[in-house]
């Protein structure tokens, strides 16, 4: 018998890969790296969001500071110096001499803020009602889903318009302009919760019969805790997809309402308000007042939309 040398077991050092690396290697990140559409639209969205966030630092002028305005600068064409003052503006100026580039940056802030806030509101409302409907069941479920069904038969832009109209009527005249942005958020949010509620309810119905929920019940956790801590994390991924698509819809809804003159007030112009103003100069040849805000809105809505489409495919290949 010969002794075979037994190799001493050396402790193998397993380097845990960093979070970033794990993420980079995941299927999700791989799908992202493989899709040029996703990368481009993500880049555009990030660029616009950052531009909106840092608007006070990027914008060459503060369009809401009357001191910096010079009426003589009105209607300056892009890139060419004004005939009276010699000032030059990258994207031109509007009728009151406001720099179009700066108004777009500030307008985008309002548009994005309203869009994000409205989607968050719709999401919170929809998730809560969907969880309750799915978990509690009974007549609560019937009531919630019946309301959802009825609301779904009306186009959401119409619902938002009606809510905005009613809310505007209810607020006292002196607060109307101040409150307009918040009213807008509530109106768009309320018009958009149904999708979230339906998806969350459907997923909850599946999840609540699984063993981990029964285990949680068995150890005596309360129903709200089971809903929020146990079921909610498991139903979130379809919610993320709907949230992205809703964001594009909310941005367009906000722009539409503001364009119609029933949204953001003239003191806080959003992209829709700017397009509304620009439309007035369509026939007199000052195309830039209309063109640049429209292109910005289009880029924003389109890239968020494409990102949402991609997210849907990436998170759920079954849906293809």
């Amino acid at each position, binding site marked *: 018998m010969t002794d075979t040398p037994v190799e001493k077991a050396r402790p193998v050092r397993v380097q845990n890969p960093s979070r970033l690396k794990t993420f980079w290697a995941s299927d999700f990140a791989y799908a992202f790296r493989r899709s040029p559409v996703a990368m481009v639209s993500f880049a555009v969205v990030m660029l616009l969001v950052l531009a909106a966030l840092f608007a006070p630092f990027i914008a060459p002028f503060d369009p809401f500071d009357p001191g910096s305005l010079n009426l003589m600068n009105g209607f300056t064409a892009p890139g060419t110096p004004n005939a009276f003052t010699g000032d030059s503006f990258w994207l031109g100026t509007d009728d009151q001499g406001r720099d179009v580039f700066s108004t777009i940056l500030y307008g985008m802030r309002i548009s994005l803020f309203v869009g994000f806030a409205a989607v968050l509101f719709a999401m919170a409302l929809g998730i809560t009602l969907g969880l309750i409907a799915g978990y509690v069941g009974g007549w609560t479920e019937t009531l919630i889903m*019946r309301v959802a069904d*009825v609301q779904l*038969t*009306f*186009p959401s*832009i*119409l619902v938002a*318009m*009606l809510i*905005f*109209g*009613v809310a*505007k*009527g*209810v607020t006292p005249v002196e607060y109307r302009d101040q409150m307009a942005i918040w009213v807008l958020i509530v109106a768009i949010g309320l018009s958009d919760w149904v999708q979230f509620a339906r998806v969350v309810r459907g997923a909850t119905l599946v999840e609540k019969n699984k063993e981990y929920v029964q285990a949680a019940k068995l150890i005596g956790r309360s129903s709200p805790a089971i809903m929020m801590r146990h079921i909610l994390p498991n139903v979130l991924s379809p919610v993320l997809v709907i949230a992205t698509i809703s964001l*594009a819809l909310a941005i*367009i809804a906000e*722009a*539409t309402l503001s*364009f*119609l*003159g*029933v949204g953001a007030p003239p003191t806080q112009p959003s992209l829709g308000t700017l*397009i509304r103003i620009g*439309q007035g100069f*369509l*026939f007199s040849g000052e195309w830039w007042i*209309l063109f640049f805000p*429209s292109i910005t*809105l*289009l880029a924003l*809505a*389109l890239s968020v*939309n494409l990102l949402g489409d991609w997210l849907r495919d990436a998170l759920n290949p079954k849906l293809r």
Partner: protein
Amino acid sequence: MLAYIIRRVFQSIIVLLVVGLVAFSMFTFVGDPIDNMLGQERTQADIDRLRTQLGLDRPFIVQYWKFLENAVQGNFGISYRQGRPVSAIIAERAPATLELALVSGLFAMILGIGLGVFTAIRKNGIASNLIMTLSLVGVSLPTFLIGILLIYVFSVELDLLPSFGRGETVMIGNWSTGFLTKSGLTALILPAITLGLYQMTLIMRLVRSEMLEVLRQDYIRFARARGLRERAVNFRHALKNTLVPVITVTGLQLGSIIAFAIITETVFQWPGVGLLFINAIQFVDIPVMAAYLMLISVMFVAINLVVDLLYFAIDPRLRIDGRHA
């Protein structure tokens, strides 16, 4: 079947009652109508007298009943802004909206079905790929930007078509129509395309996917094997079987067309009900808002009811499973 219909009608009535409650509470929440009607120099006696005269001292539920009674008879009171009966204003504006909706609905249906069949038959052609890509961009474009774009191209640059208004109209009884004059017809083109474009892409995509589904089936292969002409196979055999979902979706979209008319009418300053509603919101003209709310709800509820019942009539499977709602 009968039980289903009764339950469905009952549901619709409840929905309308709730919408009516919302419309009615707008009146009570937004200011005191007495303040609007009496001037600066009023006495408490005047206020009390008018309050009793208008029935505002009676209980909420009685007032609500009175409101419903009036609403059913088409009486929505007097516009705060124009000082005329709301029903008269709406009757005057309705033809403009209905004509616009009719033309854009036809446009959406004819072009949508045509392009849908085309893109399904030439599945991999360059033209159909181009159409499908364009339709994706079209869905992402907000309606008002499409309108502005059309105005820019056809009114500002080419100077071919009018950019606002209805042109000349002819009165037939109480109905003002733009169908009979040349300027009325040219004024219709741009708004109708703007309004119908979204529905058109929707119908087109639906027809395309249904067609692709049907074209795979055995009876189509059999029809080909029988030596039928390509056109007969595509239109007489395939298209016919895709039309059931198309008709129901188109029916449901009818309501959306009226609702989206608000946007189109604002872009083109089209003197219809939608523009009236937007102006009513801007000036907080409650009677007009309430009337529009009620009208559009009745329309939506009616369309949904009809489409639901239509499904029931078309698809025999639903009749066995009576619990479908």
